[in-house]
């Protein structure tokens, strides 16, 4: 249901994007994102600040905390229009979508006053330090340790799969602060400056040949004693609390992006006449049907108010889109045929090749398909744990 206010808001978003995604920023259309995070970094960082100046960060945050307090429907509209305009992939989304909501829920007034303005202005970038070499799906197994000595947290350990660590000013991470407590009970949620001697960042070269992810080594890295969210030992609750309120508002923008990728595959199949093959034609039709089904599912489930449902809508949406997107990648290279086996100089990939390769990660990151199924089996269906 679209209200007049929603319509006016859509016009406001469109107008702002048209006016600002121009001149120096015009070249950013379609830039960044999976497989292309290395592109136009300086320009995209400037774009973050422009978004902040325009008041387009923290749309759903409460007004007293510097947000705009907009309803869910208008946040959705923003993401849709952002994707429709082909605005560049965000660099500041981890601060806006993960740390910000965490501070709003669990942060002290001082922490909110100190950190939220930088996120809202697009001037302070964050990365997430959860995964470790031995703590992937089993996140409670984190081994990075932190101890409070001389008024500072001293942190030692290793994080991995840290997106955008090379651009981040700060990292929110979970570390073991009570070595005697078992599993998730001894963890704390710390805010750690990235630019300090105790932190070393090494890019991970992925199978795409590019590096969105990094290893982060912490060797007596420091954090101020106050830069802990919640109490010591609360880290697990704080980290998971954010995931529970994340209602997938960005999904609708993401699906517009999927729609554009599908159109590109369809156009390629028409160009080289592979669509005349009944098998390819059938798979194209299936991909399109799957896209509509995902959209209906997101509309029906993600818009429900928190607390009225088992809370597994995001897991259902993730399983649907990750698997769909991966199949689209496979279709894209099959449509291209033998040409998809050749690259440009320096392993320069086509969009189809990039889609094909990068989507192998979709079913792994953000909770692998297997973890999503565990969550759905337990929380949605109430099946006993194994």
């Amino acid at each position, binding site marked *: 249901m679209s209200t007049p206010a929603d319509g006016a808001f859509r016009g406001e978003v469109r107008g702002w994007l048209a006016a600002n995604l121009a001149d120096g920023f015009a070249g950013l259309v379609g830039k960044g994102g999976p497989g292309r995070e290395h592109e136009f970094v300086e320009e995209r960082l400037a774009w973050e600040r422009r978004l902040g100046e325009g008041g387009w960060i923290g749309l759903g945050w409460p007004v007293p905390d510097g947000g705009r307090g907009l309803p869910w429907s208008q946040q959705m509209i923003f993401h849709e229009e952002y994707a429709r305009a082909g605005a560049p992939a965000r660099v500041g989304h981890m601060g806006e979508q993960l740390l910000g909501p965490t501070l709003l829920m669990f942060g002290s007034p001082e922490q909110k006053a100190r950190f939220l303005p930088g996120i809202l202005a697009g001037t302070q970038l964050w990365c997430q330090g959860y995964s470790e070499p031995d703590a992937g799906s089993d996140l409670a197994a984190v081994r990075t340790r932190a101890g409070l000595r001389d008024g500072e947290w001293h942190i030692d350990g290793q994080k991995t799969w840290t997106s955008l660590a090379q651009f981040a000013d700060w990292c929110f991470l979970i570390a073991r602060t009570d070595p005697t407590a078992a599993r998730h009970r001894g963890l704390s949620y710390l805010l750690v400056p990235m630019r300090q001697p105790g932190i070393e960042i090494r890019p991970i070269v992925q199978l795409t040949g590019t590096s969105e992810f990094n290893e982060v080594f912490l060797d007596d890295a420091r954090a101020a004693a106050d830069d802990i969210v919640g109490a010591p030992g609360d880290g697990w609750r704080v980290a998971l609390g954010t995931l529970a309120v994340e209602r997938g508002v960005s999904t609708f923008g993401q699906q517009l992006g999927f729609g554009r990728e599908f159109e590109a595959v*369809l156009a390629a199949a028409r160009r080289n006449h592979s*669509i005349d093959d009944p098998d390819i*034609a*059938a798979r*194209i*039709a*299936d991909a*399109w*049907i799957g896209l*509509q*089904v*995902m959209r*209906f*599912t997101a*509309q*029906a*489930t993600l818009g*429900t108010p928190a607390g*009225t*449902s*088992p809370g597994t809508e995001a897991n*259902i949406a993730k*399983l*649907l889109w990750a698997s769909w997107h991966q199949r689209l990648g496979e279709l894209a290279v099959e449509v291209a045929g033998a040409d998809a086996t050749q690259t440009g100089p320096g392993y320069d990939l086509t969009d189809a090749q990039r889609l094909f390769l990068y989507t192998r990660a979709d079913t792994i990151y953000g909770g692998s398909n*297997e973890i*999503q*199924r*565990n969550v*759905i*089996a*337990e929380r*949605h*269906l*109430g*099946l*006993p*744990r*194994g």
Partner: protein
Amino acid sequence: MSDIDQSDSPEQAALRAAVRDFAGRHADGSAPKSVWPRLTGELGLTALAIPERHDGMGGTLAEVAIAVEEFGRVLLPVPYLSTVLAGAVLADGAAVAFLPGIASGAVTAAFALTGGITATGGRLSGVATHVLDGAEADLFVTRAGGALYAVRAADVAVTPVGTLDQTRSQATVAFRAAPAVAVAGDAGRAEELLRVLLAVESVGAAEHCLDATVAYLKTRVQFGRPIGAFQALRHRCADLAVEVASARATARAAVAAAVSTPDQLPVLAPLAKRHCVDVFWHVAAEMIQLHGGIGFTWEHEAHRYLKRAKSSQLLHGTPAQLRRLVAERAGLT
């Protein structure tokens, strides 16, 4: 997991609760003669979408869909889907004379859309096959040359046929210069609405298959624990839950299109029928596998769902035919 449908208005939620309660008392797949009069007279369910001036309740297909879904949940063997659809289609011209009978439950209807029927001077000839709910229908809605007609059962030769799915009858209907009432509106829309309702019905049935299977996995003990604790089975159920959620959303979108954006029906109806019935088929097939041997018995309910799913999949457009239809209509060629 299926207790609340968050898109229901309070009135619709009350309707759903009443229909589910009624249908649940006949969940063994039987429907004694007393069921239809109560379903119509007492609950007024065939009157839901008929305008008030024709003795109906003036609702929309959204209310009808609730009843169809709930009857699908238990595979209630009544000619409800065909009859309410006739109520929705025969809304104009001389055919409105049939509406009070449909609203009261005195008249049951069936759609004879498969086969070559020709019209000459207002009379129909030809043979229609695979007529769902046709064995007991009082009235047939059929198409000839792109136009819709209503024909009384007394004016045609109805031959009931054996059916794989014994919860829904079929008939072969022979028209021999049968007098017919021309119905305003196009035949294409009637079949699209039929597809939408088959999609909706499949969602109710698929949800029941999943619920029953999950309940069984929680109580069936092997190797000293409930088999629902085994990850191989948990993951399959999780995938089914995702499919059912997607089917529910898709059917809802198709119903919404039928009510308010009918220009989307030519794409959405075959899309929804294909997706929702495919999901139903998958859940029903998994229901048997996950129940093991007991699921293969005549006594267990699973086979009724399996047979309904396959029959719904093969009628009014097979999965392959519907996919091609969607591709053509959505311009994916």
